[in-house]
């Protein structure tokens, strides 16, 4: 089992191989459909982004509200395919590591290979278990989006699997 600390440098990212199980620690950023839409709008208008993309990891999740004494509620991955059109634009703008669930489009894979990005998956529907890996959560953008706002998470040993590596090998090709 490989342990990685974020931000992740290029050499480490390129060395990741499909099917590999990885424990992530450090900062990751939540964003799903509506937050991605706004990130793309900010890029188009050349406005400042809520966080810098280089070396960072985006996690597709919309958590349940945190109970008192907990940093976050249930926080498993959401399906990635809905975010494909936005991801292609963000990968070209320098965001190279994404965590979600499920297979993605051919267009996404082509852009992933061109930009040498990596797509990681977490197991879907285990949001209670994954919430135990979150140490702190800080809302950093789009509070009006509620569960879809961008939140900076500090995680420790967050379990992921490499679904598509930087040369385009895809975990889902084996089964589908």
């Amino acid at each position, binding site marked *: 089992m490989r342990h990685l600390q974020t931000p992740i440098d290029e050499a480490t990212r390129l060395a990741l191989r499909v099917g590999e199980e990885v424990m992530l620690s450090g900062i990751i950023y939540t964003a799903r459909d509506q937050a991605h839409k706004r990130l793309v709008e900010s890029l188009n208008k050349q406005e400042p982004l809520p966080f810098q993309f280089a070396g960072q990891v985006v996690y597709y999740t919309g958590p349940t509200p945190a109970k008192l004494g907990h940093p976050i509620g249930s926080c498993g991955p959401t399906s990635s395919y809905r975010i494909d059109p936005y991801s292609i634009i963000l990968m070209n703008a320098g965001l190279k590591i994404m965590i979600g669930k499920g297979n993605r489009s051919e267009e996404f894979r082509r852009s992933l290979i061109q930009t040498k990005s990596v797509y990681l998956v977490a197991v879907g529907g285990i949001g*209670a278990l994954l919430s135990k890996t979150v140490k702190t959560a800080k809302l950093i953008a789009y509070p009006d989006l509620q569960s879809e706002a961008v939140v900076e998470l500090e995680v420790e040993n967050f*379990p992921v699997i490499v679904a598509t590596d930087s040369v385009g090998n895809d975990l889902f090709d084996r*089964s589908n």
Partner: protein
Amino acid sequence: MKTINRDSLIQTVRNMVIQAATILNPLVIQKLKDAEKQETSSLAKNVLKSICDNAAIAKNDNIPMCQDTGVAVFFLHIGNELFFPYSLYEAIQEGTRQGYLDGYLRKSVVAHPLERINTKDNTPAIIHTELAMGDTLDICFAAKGAGSENMSRLTMLTPADGEKGVKDFVLETIRLAGGKPCPPIIVGIGIGGNFEKCAYLAKTALMRPLDDEAANPIDRRLENELLEAINALGIGPMAFGGKTTCLQVKVNSYPCHIASLPVAVNIQCHAARETHVILKGEDL
């Protein structure tokens, strides 16, 4: 004439919503544990084990097993001896609102599908009603997440397509869905009726107890054959490859037009969140 107290109905609905989000059906857990023993790849085994571990954490800590706590769907069977001196719909909506707020569940409903402004309390619930004999109110609740609901499909086949057409459509739906609906899944299939009845059949098939069998012998045979065919696809837990793509297939059928063969496939993720309560009417 009998009635059901409005406040106790609201309290019941509130508790059903919270319980569904946090406590996974023991029958589902047993099937997941059995499946873990069948799998040979470590990736597939790990996924199934994680799902069972997650269910235990959710129950012990009283937190939702999945962040997508869904749209609230209710199936009411209303006894014909009951009288409601208030709006039954409004009471169910109020119970839903309280459950999603008090249970720290996610509010996943937007008021208009294109404008997309969150209603902030997960209402409105989707409420289906049927009449029944007697003095009880039978309430089935499902928290239906979008991951699996988005992968569901309906088609209007022709009679000539027959059983093969039905099976091909079901398998195509499961293949297209891949890992998106969080397999292992439960598959509800509606055959017959008309356009909207068929979707309702598929949904209510998912509400049947996990371990029952269809009453009709054709439907029962399809349940067994389709379960085997779906698992032979090799999609596996989370589509990482494996034997366990589907935990159970449920088929409900209904008479249909001489020219029609509607088929609906409603997919349920492994987090099959359902609760069932029967309230008995009290004297007015």
